[in-house]
């Protein structure tokens, strides 16, 4: 059987393209690339704000609150150096709130970009399956496949949160930063993914 990858870019071009995106993203946005965390941010937007907690409406209000808390903790003398510290902290926190709202747009972009890719490369439209091996594994009934995908998706969502990252945040950026947690998690999910594939191979390919 012809390998599926023959329909795509050569590996070296693909590798260069991924690296360009991974390096350009922090250069422009100040953040490192990571997709699974964005799903969490997306949910964050729908989570109710904790009841009874302090609520601030502006950077000035936040700054006043930070200064008051600082004075309470360290005494008034901690504020001698005018209010520069408070301003910086308030700016950082409002920027954080802003990026919490804007970063999940990346997810919408992933869909748009792949639609464009499908259009320019004339991908055959197959809505009810993911491919030949998928049909072999789950049969021709798309309901079976959809249920399996939901359970798998649930594990992907939960597992990436527990591990603190996914194939992009750990596998691409974390590994490239030599972070021990990323190296361990990446090695673990690759090994597990391969083991699952071999198990399916043993079950369905006979």
């Amino acid at each position, binding site marked *: 059987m012809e*390998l599926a*990858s023959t329909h795509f*870019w050569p*590996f070296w071009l*693909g*590798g*260069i393209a*991924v*690296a360009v*995106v991974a390096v350009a*993203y922090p*250069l*422009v*946005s*100040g953040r490192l690339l990571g*997709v699974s965390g964005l*799903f969490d941010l997306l949910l964050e937007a729908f989570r109710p704000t904790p009841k009874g907690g302090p609520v601030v409406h502006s950077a000035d209000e936040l700054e006043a609150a930070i200064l008051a808390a600082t004075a309470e903790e360290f005494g008034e003398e901690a504020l001698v150096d005018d209010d520069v510290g408070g301003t910086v902290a308030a700016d950082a926190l409002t920027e954080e709130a*802003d990026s919490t709202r804007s970063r999940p*747009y990346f*997810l919408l*972009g*992933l*869909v*748009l*970009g792949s639609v*464009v*890719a*499908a259009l320019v490369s004339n*991908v055959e439209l197959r*809505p009810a399956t*993911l491919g030949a*091996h998928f049909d072999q594994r789950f049969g021709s009934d798309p309901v079976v*496949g*959809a249920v399996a995908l939901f359970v*798998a*998706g*649930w*594990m*992907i*969502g939960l*597992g990436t*949160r*527990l*591990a*603190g990252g*996914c*194939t992009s945040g*750990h596998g691409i*950026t*974390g590994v490239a*930063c030599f972070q021990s*947690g990323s190296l*361990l*998690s990446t090695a673990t999910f690759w090994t*597990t*993914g391969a*083991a*699952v*594939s*071999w198990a399916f191979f043993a079950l369905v390919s006979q």
Partner: protein
Amino acid sequence: VKRGFVHLAFGTLFGFVLARNGAADFDAMYEMFLFRDFHLFGVAIVSTGLTIAGFSWLRRTRSSSAAGSLIRWPKRPVHRGSILGAVIFGVGWGVSGACPGTALVQVGQGHLIALSTVVGIVVGTAAYDPLIRRVLKWPRVSCE
């Protein structure tokens, strides 16, 4: 809104790249895991090598992004969820041929059945908070 546009643009670019790499292709992923095809290993090796070089250039020459904010370099030490989480994720990856990003790319490539994976990811992500707080009672890991 302007910032949202930057993230939208990068997402679009990354989605296009992942799609043209076959990184979201179920069959290509399966053939990689079975060591029948080294295409995606090649992509991973080239991209990792170049990203290491690119990051070291960034660290040496830039401290802040084009938007003016400091570039945040993540610290990702080994923690209690590193192996458990990766095993759970790895099973999901092996079954569906998708990770969080490529599930969306599969949908964009016309495989509407992958919407099921996407919904699962959202529900699984939402399940994390109650699990970690009420069942495991671990400290929450932030994803910087």
